């Protein structure tokens, strides 16, 4: 399936370069300090090629890499009422929303898409940490309900990529009520006997972890992702002792029996295909049996591919 990588990458690059790195084409890995050409980084799904550090990735870029041919269609999410509490801290909530929308180019903190992975129909939902910390409010709740309903309608699995600091305080109690609301959504999938796979990405904390992000049939995390209910700082303040190395990181949770797997982002797609096909009792995915690039419909990203040389096939 390498040709797909080659075919899709240039478009991601064009998005990436325009939105996030208008001038500087280099990024410094905050883990190992290596200077990385942004193209090299995005080709590797924002995983540092030199140390394996997983940086944030937007839901759109994730979906483009996840779905066959990078093709997915968005599932519509019913808009909740704006600013239900008329919340104001140092700024008004609607101002914070506008700033987040401007910075990310997205309407809210979760994107829901449907399409195929390895020729297996799925619905996917991905949380956007760059949008107000991915926080769970009414919209995110509606998005998960819409995703579950669509999966039930299409009789296909739901794969959810979580990333959030927790509940959206600006929606007060209504953000807290997304814990039961999203749990109802997961129950719809259970009753329809459809797989619900959670991929926990850095960071997934607070009320999000204490609801839909911990209720998967299979729980996978990206390496070194912080996954917790109470954050390490709060715990250190409470118990007044130093926490062990790697505390609340994906590998630590795996060791403590809280996860099924820790899987690098670059291997995630193949693994998800294998898992959902078995749970759906489908035969193994046939590799290479995919439509030729010329037959592909337009990508979700509207830009025309720039004249870029495809990257060399990766192992």
């Amino acid at each position: 399936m390498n040709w797909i990588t080659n075919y899709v990458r240039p478009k991601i690059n064009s998005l990436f370069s325009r939105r996030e790195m208008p001038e500087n084409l280099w990024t410094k890995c905050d883990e190992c300090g290596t200077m990385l050409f942004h193209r090299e980084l995005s080709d590797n799904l924002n995983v540092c090629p030199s140390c394996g550090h997983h940086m944030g990735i937007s839901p759109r870029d994730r979906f483009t890499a996840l779905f066959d041919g990078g093709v997915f269609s968005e599932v519509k999410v019913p808009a909740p009422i704006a600013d239900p509490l008329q919340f104001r801290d140092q700024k008004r909530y609607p101002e914070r929303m506008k700033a987040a929308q401007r910075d990310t180019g997205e309407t809210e903190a979760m994107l829901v898409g449907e399409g195929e992975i390895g020729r297996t129909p799925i619905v996917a939902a991905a949380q956007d940490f760059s949008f107000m910390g991915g926080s769970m409010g009414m919209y995110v709740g509606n998005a998960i309900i819409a995703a579950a309903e669509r999966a039930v309608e299409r009789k296909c699995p739901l794969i959810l990529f979580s990333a959030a600091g927790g509940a959206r305080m600006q929606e007060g109690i209504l953000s807290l009520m997304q814990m039961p609301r999203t749990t109802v959504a997961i129950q719809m999938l259970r009753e329809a006997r459809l797989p619900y796979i959670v991929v926990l990405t850095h960071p997934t904390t607070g009320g999000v972890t204490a609801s839909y992000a911990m209720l998967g049939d299979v729980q996978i995390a990206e390496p070194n992702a912080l996954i917790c209910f109470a954050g390490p700082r709060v715990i250190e303040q409470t118990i007044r002792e130093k926490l062990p190395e790697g505390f609340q990181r994906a590998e630590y949770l795996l060791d403590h029996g809280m996860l099924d797997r820790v899987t690098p982002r670059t291997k995630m797609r193949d693994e998800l295909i294998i898992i959902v096909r078995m749970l759906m009792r489908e035969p193994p995915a046939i590799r290479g049996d995919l439509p030729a690039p010329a037959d592909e419909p337009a990508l979700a990203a509207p830009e025309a591919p720039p004249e870029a040389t495809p990257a060399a096939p990766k192992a």
Partner: protein
Amino acid sequence: MNNYLEFEKPLAEIEGKAEELRAMARANPEMDVEGEAAALDQKADQMLADLYKSLTPWRKCQVARHPDRPHCKDYIEALFQEYTPLAGDRNFADDHAVMGGLARLNDRPVVVIGHEKGADTKSRIERNFGMARPEGYRKAIRLMDLADRFRLPVITLVDTPGAYPGKGAEERGQSEAIARSTEKCLQIGVPLISVVIGEGGSGGAVAFATANEVAMLEHSIYSVISPEGCASILWKDAEKMREAAEALRLTAQDLKKLGVVDRIIPEPVGGAQRHRTAVISAVGKALEEMLAAYDGKKRSEIVAARRSKFLEMGRKGLAA
């Protein structure tokens, strides 16, 4: 009443003066102070009424956390008969921050579960100030399963600052335990009735209060985060808790308007901490009424009603 809240200080002074006068009169029987003392009493009563007529959200937080308010144990002892505590999560430990077991509410057998904060230093430590660990939620899940199997209604009494932020709690899956408890609340085919009697703190409260009917005491609170926590994150200053308490809309009155809470149980002037018996019996009456509404309902109806209640939630804001 010795435990005055900060905003009750002027009241403490007047009541203190009246007490002093009466103490003097006891020492010197020839002194006549009763007229003066009675005037002070009247002034104090008026002040109490004025203070409690319109409590600010931050003052409500203080009242909700008042150490003299009746706690879960007080309600269970006063309202239920044949209370038989059932302990443990069958996996790791028995969490003393959560009490629960079989009991009768006016002859009707039920399962009752609640957070217990403790009443003195020793019991507060033993109860971990009402902050449950994963074992507490897992005990609750077990008890809800038991109730479901034997067709007993479940009553939960919510009073927690939140889940315990500890090392072991995280290692043993705090978030998973809360998520499963919330899920269990939504699954059981028996009525689940919940009363927030003090503090409804975040996920720790949701894990018990995902109920068919949620009632709140007049001066209790229910919030996604404590005002102090919210202030330190959004205002970068924990001292802005008054502003945060306003903004969060965490009072029973606002939550009723938002459709998150179904009923408010009134507290006499001065709050539950001054009128423990009256408030406990008001809660008992409310529980009885809320339970009776589910008599004869089918299991599937009960589950469906609970689910659609939460799916519909949030359709209206405060402005509506």
